[in-house]
């Protein structure tokens, strides 16, 4: 049920329990893995991942922690901080990776017994990350939160401090870009791998 005065804010959200405060340490205990994953999906490498996770929660600490008033969620709030921290880190280091450190992910989740399946999983992760890398940072963040982290558009809007319509718009564009990139990557993989070399050898 939508609030007629504030579109995008659901009436049930307004009937949420009283605001609750989370300090940075409790946020860290509950959401450090989420922040690490989110930063990684934004393109942060393993070498600087822990530093940036620390930085995100230090910013959260300086902001006085998170007040859960039923609109934004701690994860979307931390995601907004993570985007800023990752952006500053990217500018500071003057580098942006083409591919994130997939070894980190594969070590964690892809302990497949079947080596063929493991390779397929790795290829799938590479495709998703390459398609994510093709998105602009703002769209990428919204895409990750909605599609991979399961956040609602209203929670993303509240966490980022933008209208929910903007979230819909950015998400729509991000999905189209992501789909196109993913299709291109699949098509490229299906093509014969040795074709360029043959062309150079044959007169």
């Amino acid at each position, binding site marked *: 049920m939508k609030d007629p005065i504030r579109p995008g804010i659901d009436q049930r959200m307004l009937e949420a329990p009283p605001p609750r405060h989370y300090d940075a340490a409790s946020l860290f205990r509950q959401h450090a893995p989420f922040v690490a994953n989110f930063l990684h999906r934004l393109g942060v490498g393993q070498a600087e991942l822990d530093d940036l996770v620390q*930085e995100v929660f230090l910013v959260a600490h*300086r902001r006085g922690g998170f007040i859960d008033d039923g609109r934004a969620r701690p994860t979307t709030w931390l995601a907004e901080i993570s985007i800023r921290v990752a952006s500053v880190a990217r500018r500071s280091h003057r580098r942006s990776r083409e591919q994130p450190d997939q070894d980190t992910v594969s070590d964690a989740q892809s302990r497949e017994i079947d080596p063929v399946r493991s390779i397929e999983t790795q290829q799938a992760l590479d495709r998703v990350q390459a398609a994510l890398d093709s998105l602009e940072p703002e769209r990428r963040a919204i895409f990750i939160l909605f599609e991979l982290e399961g956040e609602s558009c209203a929670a993303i809007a509240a966490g980022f401090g933008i209208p929910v319509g903007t979230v819909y718009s950015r998400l729509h564009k991000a999905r189209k870009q992501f789909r196109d990139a993913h299709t291109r990557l699949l098509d490229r993989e299906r093509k014969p791998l040795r074709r360029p070399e043959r062309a150079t050898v044959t007169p």
Partner: protein
Amino acid sequence: MTAPFTHDPTRLLEDHASSSLRRDLELARAARVDYPSDAGLARFEATLAGASTLPAGGSLAGLAVLRWFLGVTAVLSLTLGIAWLSSPSPPQPAMAVAPPTSRIEPSPTPLQPAMAATSPTPQPMPAASPSSPLATATAQSPPMPAAPPSGSTPPKPDSPTASKPASQAIASLDEARLIDAARKSLAEDPAHTLELTEQAAERFPAGAMIEERRGYAILALITLDRPKAEQLASEYLERWPKGPLARRIRDGLGIPALLP
């Protein structure tokens, strides 16, 4: 519809039109970074206990400015001190070497904003209300001149330019140390930060770090007295809209960022 509260679009994971995309996304969703939360939390708590504070928003600009300022001021005071002690007669040419920026050099001309407070004319930025700690601080008397080093010869009457820059450089160094201490205590003890900024305002009303002093005071007031912080922030951001602390103040008060 997956989200219970909104009319969100169908997630791609539930889009049956593209099986390969769905499969890849399912794998990506299941993939998690193996982050050592316990070790990370221990480090985080140790950082908080040590009151190590980097500027908010991830920016290192404020810290870099402070470090740069401390370094330059230390070198400057050392150079001036040596030259002053080793000159029995009128100052050497080296004494006339200016510091790299006008911000470090306390210029005697009334055109410098930092020196305007000592002149009869009011400051360009109107101070806060009389009850404001900043207003109280800026209304204080001029700083006490730093005492010359013990055992050294007193300044000669015919070389006032030699002793003045040296004492000013020492004062600048003290001011920078005070502001740095205020910065360090901000995360753990904002009241102490406020106290230190007031102390800095009393000792160095026309100091070279007015912007930092007022900025950290506002950041402390965000925690202690938000309405006062909002009141002071509007004046601060009007005067230093792109300063190194402006972004933190905007973030802390939820003020929209400047358009590029």
